[in-house]
């Protein structure tokens, strides 16, 4: 059982943060 649930939540949050950051930089760069 371990810490899988918590790691998943933290992983999803981090992934969402990275996606939005890339999107922001991509939009600013005018791609």
């Amino acid at each position, binding site marked *: 059982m371990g810490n899988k649930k918590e790691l998943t939540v933290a992983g999803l949050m981090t992934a969402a943060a990275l996606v939005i*950051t890339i999107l922001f930089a991509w939009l*600013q760069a005018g791609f």
Partner: protein
Amino acid sequence: MKKKNLRLLVWAIYLLIILLPLIVMMVFPMPKGRDFWRDFSVGLGFVGLAMAGMQFIPTARLRFLSDIFDMDHVYKVHHYLSVVSVLLVAVHPIILLVNNPYVINFFNPFTAPWRAQAGWIGLGSLLLIAITSVLRTDLKLDYNAWHGIHDLLAAAIAVFPLIHISKVNYYASTAAVKWVWAFEVLIWVGMTVYVRILKPIFLLKRPFTIKEIIEETWDTWTIVLKPKGHAGFDFNASQVAWININSSPFTLHKNPFSISGSAHRKDELRFSIKNLGDFTSSIGKLKGGETVYVDGPYGSFNLNEPNMQNGFVFLAGGIGSAPIMSMLHTMADAKDQRPVYFFYGCYDEENIIFKKDLEELRKKLDLKLFYVLEKPKSPQNIYQGFISYDLLNEKLPENRKELFYYICGPLPMIDAMESHLIKLGIPDYKVNKEKYKMA
């Protein structure tokens, strides 16, 4: 709304607040972008800072959160996201440097301009918080000293990165970015005011006094509190509260303990506390009559969940039996006849806490009690060693998968019980774990 949906909603709001500065920057007109990597690094800094700021919420002990979440899970996610926020912020100057080697001039904190120095102070504080939190026990930092350091560093994290953002004054030159950071700061300040001022004022108005101190064993006491000038509060069996004895609720000296008494006795609150050498060593010296402030109750566990209707298996080690006593007393007061199997691991006969109470409860409940002693003085009628798979397999009934399992004890014991339960085929949703020490 169902608990699961509420949890999703809370995580969604949390994510929205973290991402809000970037969302605002995508929606509102912004100064022209520089290049992808530079803006990517700025974005990471923003999202990392918003994430670091929101780390305060899980530790603020908000009732609505503890009602829907297992707080141990929340603390673990909080620890992971704290590390993530540090990494995001730390990567910000590294990407800037790789992208433009000229940035090396800003890496000397003594000669760098103030806008960069403020950023370094913020990053340094964030790193120090992470290091002192992860290595607290290795560094032999007292919990309350660490708490004080944590608060000071948190204040530095709230102030210096914002000075950095405003002095760089690129995206922060726009009203939308100014407003969004003002909103983020409002949340941080609001939480601080709530935790440090409003909640202690509320606790001050709800004092308790120590009515009785019961010596359970040579190193464990139960303190019985009675409400002073108020009616007490409702709680569920096995919930937790933070208490401070003979000190102001404004101090940081609060310690979490499980309630060990019946949820049907609103006129008294019981906490059973074992001497672990810290604050707990002073419990035996209390005389009675002391004022106690109780911040609680917290905890989402409820004896009456639909998946608990066929009975319980309690697995406890040492003082891990305290929340179980709360459940047993609550069930006895409610004349609840659901079957209970209680496997109780202790060192020897002298260390069995609540023995007298348990024998009384055996008469009132459908309770099957198994003492498992590591070093029994007289091995007759006692199980020797640790709570093992074989013992559980032998004593648990055929319908074992329909029972609800509650484990409370030190971490190695919880790990051992988890693997026994997996081997017995008990589904995960039928198991609740309470670690003896908070994560």
